[in-house]
């Protein structure tokens, strides 16, 4: 989708055109992690970038701020390439990123110091901001004396003190407990809606759907492998937003649907561009990084509830975020034990059988499903069978995977495949030697 449907479009503060990120592989080909994307940040908006973790949200944020260079395409800051300007932006980090050896006041003053502001002036400004975020009285405290919420307030104060035109927030509330996070969200909205800060736009990266719907005027949903803009829509609910309101719930549910439903048409290996003359290679299925035990739990719950459950409600009840639940759902779908329909998870007969079986029978069902649905495991079994001693080194499979994934990802893919294969008793694995051996029936 394009941003054209955002009706009264003034000139954007930051605009990304065909922004793309890819990493070079040792063999000269490139792995794309972010597909060419257009994105614009307009004044007066809180914009949320939503997607499962590891999908490239943070990379996108870093390219927009100029921290990380784009592989192709460019970022414009008021119409000028971001490389030439040094944009007045600030970032609030998930890990707070405070300097533990500086006091609260010194932490907040540091960015002003960097701008060459005189001590008296920068102290005045810092104290004002510290007061505004509710840290009055903690000026001389060191970060380690503060609770998580207080620490993030320092992070926010440090960001606001430079009066950034755009305030970037990278999962700012993920490291906090539920209640503290809610408080901080409220305080942020208060500052923003009350025009108490000169910031003209906020760009927040999150994997929490409700957080996005509570805060944002516009939500962009990222898809995976490679990351791409999957949906882009406005949120018209007036503040303060009622989490139980019909409109709110409907919106949350529809985002759930978007995040779960069409996932599999993209769940293939990232497309790669090869040099001229290199043959295109077949796409490989990408394994979600889960363990069989997690899927068993999900299927048991489903079987318990009559075989059909609304994913959003389930996540809510289990106090899980999409992040934690989606890979498990993906695993079950991949193995044919689950279907996702309109944001609901529906168990299949195979899934039902699995949920009700005992340990040994489960392994048999899992084995059948894995060999039928996971080409990688099938390949591994065949390769092991072809050897007279039924043994191969994991390096061999790593090399196979390296053709499709980045170094890090192929390591994780193999790890997951070994995890599954061991559970299914397809092969044994010796971690010390890195050898895989076919399990004899």
């Amino acid at each position, binding site marked *: 989708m394009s941003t054209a449907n955002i009706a009264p479009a003034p000139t954007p503060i930051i605009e990304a055109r065909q922004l793309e990120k890819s990493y070079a592989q040792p063999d000269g080909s490139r792995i794309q992690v972010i597909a060419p994307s257009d994105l614009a940040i307009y004044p007066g908006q809180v914009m949320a970038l939503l997607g499962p973790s590891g999908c490239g949200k943070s990379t996108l944020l870093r390219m927009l701020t100029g*921290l990380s260079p784009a592989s192709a395409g460019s970022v414009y800051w008021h119409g000028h390439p971001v490389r030439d300007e040094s944009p007045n932006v600030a*970032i609030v*980090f998930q890990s707070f*990123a405070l300097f533990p*050896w500086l006091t609260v006041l010194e932490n907040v003053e*540091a960015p002003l110091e*960097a701008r*060459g502001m005189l001590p008296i002036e920068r102290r005045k400004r810092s104290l004002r901001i510290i007061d505004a975020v509710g840290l009055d009285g903690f000026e001389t405290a060191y970060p*380690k004396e503060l609770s998580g919420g207080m620490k993030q307030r320092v992070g926010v104060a*440090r960001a606001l003190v430079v009066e950034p035109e755009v305030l970037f927030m990278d999962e700012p509330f993920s490291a906090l407990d539920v209640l503290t996070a809610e408080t901080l969200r409220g305080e942020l909205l208060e500052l923003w809606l009350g025009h108490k800060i000169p910031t003209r736009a906020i760009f927040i990266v999150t994997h929490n759907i409700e957080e996005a719907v509570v805060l944002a005027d516009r939500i962009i949903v990222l898809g995976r492998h490679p990351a791409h803009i999957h949906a882009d829509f406005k949120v018209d609910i007036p503040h303060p937003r009622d989490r139980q309101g019909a409109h709110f719930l409907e919106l949350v549910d529809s985002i759930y649907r978007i995040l779960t439903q069409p996932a599999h048409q993209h769940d293939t290996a990232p497309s790669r561009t090869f040099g001229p003359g290199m043959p295109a290679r077949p796409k490989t299925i990408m394994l979600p990084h889960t363990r069989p035990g997690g899927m068993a739990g999900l299927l048991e719950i489903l079987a318990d509830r009559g075989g059909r459950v609304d994913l959003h409600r389930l996540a809510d009840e289990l106090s899980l975020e999409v992040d934690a639940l989606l890979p498990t759902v993906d695993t079950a779908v991949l193995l044919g034990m689950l279907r996702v329909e309109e944001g609901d998870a529906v168990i299949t007969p195979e899934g039902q059988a699995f949920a009700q079986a005992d340990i040994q029978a489960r392994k048999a069902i899992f084995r059948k499903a894995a060999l039928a649905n996971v080409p990688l495991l099938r390949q591994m079994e065949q390769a092991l069978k072809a050897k007279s001693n039924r043994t191969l080194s994991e390096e061999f499979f790593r090399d196979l995977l390296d053709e499709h994934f980045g170094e890090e990802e192929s390591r994780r893919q193999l790890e997951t495949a070994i995890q599954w294969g061991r559970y299914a008793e397809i092969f044994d694995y010796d971690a010390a030697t890195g050898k895989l051996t076919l399990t004899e029936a």
Partner: protein
Amino acid sequence: MSDLTLSTAQATPLPPAVTRPAGSRWSWALLIDIAVFLFVCAAIFGVYAIGRSWLGPVHPHVEISQNPGVLPLYALFSLVRISVAYVLSLVFALAYGYVAASSRRAEIIMVPLLDILQSIPVLSFLPGVMLAMVAIFPHSQLGVELGSILLIFTGQVWNMAFSFYSSLKTIPRELHEVAIIYRFSRWQRFAELDLPFSTIGLVWNSMMSVAGGWFFLMACEMFVLGNRDFRLPGLGSFLQTAASHGHTSAILWGLAAMIAVIVLLDQVVWRPIIVWADKFKFEQVESSGAAQSTLLQLIGRASIVLRLYRLILQPVFHWLTLTFTLGARRAAETFSAPKQNLVRRWIGYLLAAGVLVGLGFAVFHAVRELSDLHREDYDELLESAALSFLRVNTALILGALWTIPAGVAIGSNPRLARIAQPLVQMAASIPATALFPIILLFLLGLRGGLEIAAMLLMLLGTQWYILFNVIAGAMAIPTDLKEAAQIYRFRSWDRWRHLILPAIFPYLLTGMVTASGGAWNASIVAEYFHFQGRIVSTAGLGSTISSASDSGRFDVLLASTLIMATVVVLINRLLWRRLYRLASSRFKLET
């Protein structure tokens, strides 16, 4: 107190595998190693060559007094030497670590170089450095003083440089991003991020370095080189003189002074610094068992110190920050980027060319020098290397044999630990070289006395590293594992085999690596000694190095030094690094 043991465990002398440039293949790393090693050989030769060609005439004769009354003055002399050397080391370590961590290209060479420099026996630098310094200042003691300072410097600088480098490499990405996004100047980044983040590692390594400094100070305050006799008034020369004359009371006085200085340093310098450094701990939550220092509290309360800080240090700091900010901006305005790059690139090329020419020249001459040696000389050298190898490893094994049970006993009994740890720290901080004359006094009468004494010196110099680390390892064994061993009624041997040994393995390894390097270095002092007016020696690579420098045989000295460095590097690469990998993959206690 537990802090010390844990941190000695962290101060790995070997660069962990992480620090190797990512993606480098074996052969590539090997090539770099070889290149770097050649470079070091050339540099060593350079030092010798300069030293020999400048062999000047005049040198003042210093008489070392044996009157206990001079001890305070002598202690001061020694202390000044150590302090100057330490300051030099710190400055150098900061510069080296900073450059290595901020330039990819420099890193490829500088990190393996550190590894090799660490393995070169410091004392074999002695003749070259001394002769060079004396030649530069022929008419004063300054030359000898500077020489001994430089030697102490080479003994303490490498682990500090490595510590700073690896701290810089482990700064979390977000903190870097904060510095970039909020446009910190280089100075501000250094002062507010790089340096504070590395402080704790630097403090612990400084303590280790200074302890090592005492070890070498004892050896290089007084020595013979060819027909020349160098003496510097100090604690080391006092003890050596006392030992060679057999003055028991003077020896005791000297030792007492030595211990007093070390205890004083510990209380007045290190304790307060450790407590102060606590604020640089990179952690999110406040830890419970924080160290304490009465002195620091006193300083903190003393308003004069605070006032001085506010009056002098703070304004200087602010001024620096402002100047650098504005300076950086002005520089950005006046210079256009490409021009600067061009100038820089040419300077880089010129430097590289200069280094290459020097390298070639030095290697050529070193090879010529080495080819003067006969085949028999080399056979003899290798034979003595084998003897030293046996001696060093016997000492290591003996050390491990007693420290493992002792360390485990101390580490798993908190009450015992509280009593034993300060004692162990005390014992460890007395330089083995100071004790050596006394040991010789007792052992020389026995048959094979020097053999025993040599190994004892190696043990004394190195067993503490092992003990510290074993204690730390034993303290880190999780209680539930111990309980599991108890509930399933593991017998004593099973408990050792399945629980204790695997759990302390990574720690033991760290201790053994440090100890191994230390023992090789100690062999130079241990195998060859001036005692009671004569030379006592036993065959070995260390004694070859010592006697070569005594008699001014530079070719033998060069060859034996290179052999020792090679042996140490080989042992590190072939044995310790592999064991490290094993330890970090199999024996890491993870939660």
